[in-house]
């Protein structure tokens, strides 16, 4: 087995929640898993299962309470913002709501140029061309660079968001319900794009979703989460064919029922 | 648990407020003894003055004496008024007056804003709405003390309906207090009513567009039922909240208006104290206002908790 790109050990994330006894919500509760380079790991579970929290903690957007995060063997669990900055490039994110993942006051072109400028990845004179190329890579015309987020559709923005994540040539992308807010007829476009991008660049991806169909389509491995705990993890078809956990079975049951009825409508 | 925590926070705030009030005043330039007695005052008189007002103690001890006295309602003696009258006595005599005027203004503002806000929301987009909204903006644009004078000019001097000056204590005569307090309360209430009615209008419109209102209409409930039980009731939450937030502005208005109308309340006492640099009086007044605001906030929070089940237990 290859060395893991990212390894997570006994990760615990807590939030303050005055409504709960003890005043603490344990959103991620002792999760351990590894992500190999170039694999797509599906993180499935229902709302409140902690999958988004886990995804954002991997990126150190949240501070883990316990446990360890290793990026290519390097412990990044408690690096501060400055210490983290050199490693930020390696890990990017695509968010659920494409509109709110762009600053409404900046054009899409500016949004794509910032990381390039910040990490000095290209000469100022090449910036425009480089942004245009990034847009084209995700299937957008270069003239979208001058648009403001509210002037674009959800699908277009999500393409731009993927393009922005790719500018830094990351090794890992966390995609958090990246298609669930999109129109049904546009979802397939983005799923195809993600798959194509992964195939082309060989990056690893954590794909967070509640849609089992989508997870099964895209992911190499599946991790099932429930109430902050990791219930099971395994190659996609293993999990789908031979679920180990009762909860996984119940979850998959909804899928099978739907499929069955779709084939033989009442 | 929550209640005791709340009480602790409240007490801490009062204590911190007392410290701010006390030490800020101590930092003010000038010796209170000399400013009260004059710079050429004889040393033994100055010494006696300092002893009387505890000024001979170290500052920390002065504060301890002051705060422990304050807890018992003893705020020391006035430096200027009637040759050193106990400040606690002054405050006790005037607090009910300020409370009455403040409450009166609050009720007036509440009644006016409920009418204006509701009418504007229900007639949204029409000329009536524009009229009501304009009145609201105009109301918040008039300095309250100026409005007080204009009201006196028209409603007390030209049309002798209300008394032009002074105040009847409600303990002497409640109708008299209501009558003599009307113009000052109205002058304070006008800008408040403007703010309140805008908030109520916005809140009503906001609640009207909530899905549960649509659900209730889809069940065929009558519009008056939906308005009273759901729209108006739920709009009261932000409305009451804003009233709580605005109480501090309202009390600010009370200070000026009391002076303008010669109402013997805490506000005019504080202004007199400010003129005379009467530190004990100013400290006590500021602290009293602090306690009033905190008390009102507590009341508003309790009321909000009654109105909004989600806010309970917080």
């Amino acid at each position: 087995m290859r060395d893991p790109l990212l390894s997570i050990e006994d990760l615990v994330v807590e939030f303050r929640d005055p409504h709960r006894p003890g005043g603490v919500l344990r959103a991620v509760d002792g999760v351990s898993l590894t992500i190999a380079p170039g694999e797509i790991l599906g993180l499935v579970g229902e709302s409140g299962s902690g999958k988004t929290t886990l995804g954002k903690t991997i990126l150190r957007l949240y501070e883990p309470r316990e446990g360890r995060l290793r990026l290519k063997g390097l412990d990044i669990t408690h690096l501060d913002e400055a210490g983290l900055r050199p490693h930020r490039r390696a890990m990017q994110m695509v968010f659920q709501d494409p509109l709110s993942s762009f600053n409404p006051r900046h054009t899409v072109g500016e949004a794509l140029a910032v990381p390039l400028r910040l990490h000095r990845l290209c000469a100022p004179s090449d910036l425009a061309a480089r942004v245009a190329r990034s847009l084209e890579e995700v299937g957008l015309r270069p003239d979208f660079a001058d648009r403001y987020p509210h002037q674009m559709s959800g699908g277009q923005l999500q393409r731009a968001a993927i393009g922005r994540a790719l500018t830094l040539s990351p090794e890992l992308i966390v995609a958090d319900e990246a298609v669930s807010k999109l129109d049904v007829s546009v979802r397939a476009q983005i799923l195809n794009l993600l798959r194509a991008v992964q195939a082309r660049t060989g990056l690893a991806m954590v794909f967070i979703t509640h849609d089992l169909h989508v997870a099964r389509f895209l992911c190499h491995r599946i991790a099932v989460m429930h109430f902050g705990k990791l219930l099971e993890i395994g190659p996609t078809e293993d999990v789908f064919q031979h679920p180990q956990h009762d909860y996984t079975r119940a979850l998959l049951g909804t899928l099978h029922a739907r499929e069955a009825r779709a084939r033989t409508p009442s | 648990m929550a209640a005791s925590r709340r009480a602790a926070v409240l007490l801490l705030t009062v204590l911190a407020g007392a410290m701010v009030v006390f030490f800020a005043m101590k930092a003010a330039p000038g010796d209170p003894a000399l400013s009260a007695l004059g710079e050429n005052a004889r040393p033994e008189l100055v010494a006696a003055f300092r002893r009387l007002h505890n000024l001979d103690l170290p500052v920390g001890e002065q504060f301890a004496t002051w705060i422990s006295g304050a807890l018992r309602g003893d705020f020391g003696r006035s430096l200027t008024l009637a040759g050193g009258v106990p400040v606690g006595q002054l405050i006790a005599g005037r607090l009910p007056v300020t409370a009455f005027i403040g409450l009166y203004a609050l009720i007036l503002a509440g009644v006016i804003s409920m009418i204006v806000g509701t009418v504007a929301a229900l007639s949204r987009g029409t000329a009536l709405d524009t009229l009501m909204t304009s009145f609201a903006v105009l109301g918040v644009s008039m300095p309250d003390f100026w409005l007080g004078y204009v009201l006196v000019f028209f409603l007390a001097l030209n049309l002798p309906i209300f008394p032009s000056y002074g105040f009847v204590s409600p303990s002497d005569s409640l109708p008299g207090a209501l009558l003599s307090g009307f113009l000052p309360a109205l002058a304070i209430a006008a800008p408040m009513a403007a703010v309140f009615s805008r908030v109520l209008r916005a809140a009503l419109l906001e609640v009207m567009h909530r899905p549960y209102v649509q659900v209730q209409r889809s069940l065929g409930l009558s519009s008056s039922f939906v308005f009273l039980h759901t729209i108006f009731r739920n709009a009261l939450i932000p409305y009451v909240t804003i009233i709580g937030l605005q109480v501090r502005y309202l009390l600010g208005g009370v200070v000026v208006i009391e002076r303008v109308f010669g109402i013997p309340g805490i506000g005019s006492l504080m202004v007199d104290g400010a003129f005379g640099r009467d530190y004990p009086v100013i400290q006590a007044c500021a602290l009293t206002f602090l306690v009033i605001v905190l008390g009102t906030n507590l009341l508003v929070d309790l009321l909000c908790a009654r109105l909004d089940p989600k806010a309970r237990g917080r």
Partner: protein
Amino acid sequence: MSRLLEVRNLRVTAGPLAVVRGIDIDLDEGETLGLIGESGSGKTVACLSLLRLLPDGLRTEADVLIYKDRDIASLPEREFRPLRGRELAMVFQDPVGSFNPAKRIGWHLRTAIARAGHDGPWRERALELLDGVGIPQPAAVLERYPHQLSGGMLQRALIAMIVALKPSLIVADEPTTNLDNIVEEQILALFRDLQKRLAAGFIFITHDIGVAAQIADRIAVMYAGQIVETGPTADILAAPRHPYTRGLIATANALAARAETLAEIPGQLPALDALPPGCGFAPRCAQARPACAQPQPMRPVGPGHAMRCLLDA
């Protein structure tokens, strides 16, 4: 079965914008129509307009609007209001938002029960209703505030309120979209149960063709304010005719089959203020031809099956 609802050429406009551009709906008693469409296709607005629940600024027109042999288009609001709840009812997408957060569940049920004209103690009736929609410990639930219950529970409670009113037509607007998979499955089961228990007609709005497949007798697919295809569920799933319907079903099938790449519908949904002149789908359609720039009428393509497209015509 008798005809419950007949709608011809229903149009909803917001100022100069047409949100619903002339749709026809026929519904029999005991029948369930699945109305499929993406956000902005006008499906929700069309149904809200049937109950006259549209927000200010939206105008409804229809050539024919007949409910139970009554022309309800011309009814004044005073006479229409009693129909809401008792005859036409609606389940909304957001169960949490459907409840007045300041009132207990008991208050909501009491209100519904009173509206149903029920005599006698409301409490027993409420417990009975909650029990009927599968809510455990109904007595405790009556004392709860909405925020203390899960979305699934609230959706059940809302359904219980509607059951109390025994309406003849129930519009369900994506009632499971905001719910988790397992709960969604349970609510769908509850709807199927209701279909058996109540002799009501259902209009079930969804964007998920799989959900429609489970629950609907007939399906109508909406795109850009129009119904582009309608027919019996089995026919539509087995042999979709409109390119848009075909695209949706192909995508769903490809996902389920874990194909290498998904069948895409290229392009974006048209904006309301930039609708193409003829077929709304033409700009995204691989088979579009010049004639598509003309408005297309619904064409019958099979028994009870019609579509709005030049293909195969």
